[in-house]
């Protein structure tokens, strides 16, 4: 009955084809993998803004399964899947390992920290099935203490308020106004980098292009 046992296996055409096929697939996948590995090193300096609750970049990249559930959950559509194209459009170095991972481009749409959304937690952290984004309460005090997506930085050469006109758009946009971002004389933005959670709403609001205030992602090396 059982044709696998006993009798010596003949080298039929079928079997040769089978072995040839599996050999080709294995070699091809090895080559593809080697190519991916060779390129995985280059991404060390590529930095992009991660959703709140993200693990440190290297842990994030290895835990994340690229399922896109956080992007589906985001009420403000600020989380998108990283592609080389949208990275380039938003002046982020395109990295191979980052592909498909969730990223926020504040200039496009910034994180509203689930203001007005149903539930008690930040929705993307609730959606994440892999622990790459860790469950985070959307309580203001909790956010102030635990969320560090990045830190806003002002380019004084670009900012209107530092160059003779007063603007203050970024200060109005800040969800932690008066703590993370205060208005100085002539609406000059003053950032408290200890308090800033890096949501990017100031960068979104900046009327200057390129933006005078930008969030430096916390996963950036420099």
């Amino acid at each position: 009955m059982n044709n696998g046992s006993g009798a010596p296996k003949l080298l039929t055409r079928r079997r040769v084809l089978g072995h040839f096929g599996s050999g080709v697939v294995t070699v091809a996948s090895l080559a593809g993998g080697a190519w991916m590995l060779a390129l995985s090193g280059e991404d060390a300096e590529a930095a992009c803004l991660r959703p709140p609750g993200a693990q440190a970049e290297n842990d994030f990249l290895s835990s994340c399964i690229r399922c896109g559930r956080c992007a589906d959950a985001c009420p403000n559509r600020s989380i998108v899947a990283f592609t080389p194209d949208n990275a380039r459009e938003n002046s982020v170095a395109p990295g191979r390992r980052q592909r498909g991972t969730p990223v926020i481009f504040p200039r496009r749409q910034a994180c509203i920290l689930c203001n007005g959304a149903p539930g008690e937690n930040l929705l993307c952290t609730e959606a994440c099935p892999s622990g790459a984004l860790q469950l985070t309460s959307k309580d203001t005090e909790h956010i102030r203490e635990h969320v560090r997506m990045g830190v806003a930085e002002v380019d004084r050469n670009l900012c209107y308020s530092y160059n003779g006109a007063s603007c203050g758009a970024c200060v109005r946009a800040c969800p932690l106004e008066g703590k993370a971002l205060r208005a100085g004389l002539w609406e000059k933005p003053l950032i408290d980098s200890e308090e800033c959670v890096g949501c990017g709403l100031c960068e979104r609001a900046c009327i200057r292009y390129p933006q005078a205030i930008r969030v430096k992602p916390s996963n950036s090396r420099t």
Partner: protein
Amino acid sequence: MSTAGGMGKRRRPSLLGISRRVVQLGVIVLILAIPALARYNNYLAAYELDRKIEKWVGTVQGVTLASIDTVIRTLPGAEIERAGRMQRKRDVARSYAQSMQGGVWSAQLGPVSLTDPLAAAESVAASRKLPWVLAAGLAIPLLATLLLGRIFCSWICPVGFLLELSDKLRGVLRFLEIKPRNLRFSFGMKYSLLAVGLLLTALSATPVLAYVYPPAVFNRELHDLVFAMFDRAENGKPGLWLGGLSWMAMLLAAIALFEVLLSRRWWCRYVCPGGALYALLGWSRPLRVKLKREACTDCAACTAACPMGLNPMKGQMGIECDNCGVCITACGDDALDYGFAMPTSPETQPLPQSQGTRA
């Protein structure tokens, strides 16, 4: 055909076959509905929904949003009376819309979180950690696979479904008197591919299979296509648009063509690393197709029908069998049926078919 004798009592419609098709179609509908639900949720959050529905009336996007809204309004607690008119209760509607996310790689369906065992294996291999959330999402799919075998392949996988449909074209070819070929490869190929994939995942600390695993990629492409259609609508071009399908859709078309002309169900039988993982997990599954030898008339209808190229007539199901039940439906003698059995009796021992499947 040698089945001439059995032809008389052919094929009643089987509940099993019909329900499998219903589930497979449902999965495709869900894959397309989930991104639409996400957009519905976004518009609701931005107080834009009614305006969008009005503006896009008569187009795919408008109809989709309106039908989602109609369904959600019927759910308990989602409607309130305001100024003598029934209206949506935004918070409740948003919670409903929020409860569906993702796709076959990992999904939230109401209260249930489901994660593909392959996705979980990749995350664990890459990060060397198994967080509780991951284990929780893994529980149901893993248990189902341990008990029922490769049912993901036969009931859920959208790629398996499409390849199953394109397999029907072989019948069309036969009608045209063109005999499609059926080259056989080694079943071992998919196991080596799985091993290589997981090894690379561990070495690169990146879930590489997530980038190439067809159900995951195809699902993501469909998902993004729906998003792209809504984006186009927002830019003033509502209507159907299929230009966003990219490489996986084309690759699938190529695979389907290859399968139809040269090798039946090539991908699922010999190549798919996900199928390999589920086959291994289902090694000692209790649910098996069982053969009643005394009822069997050796007509080989089951063997001809088996999408996985196995031989149910000889009781050869083994770990490759995805419990799809096509052989049960094909059998004109009621000699095949599902049965629960612990894998200790020699009859039901996993018998990997002929070529090297020791993996």
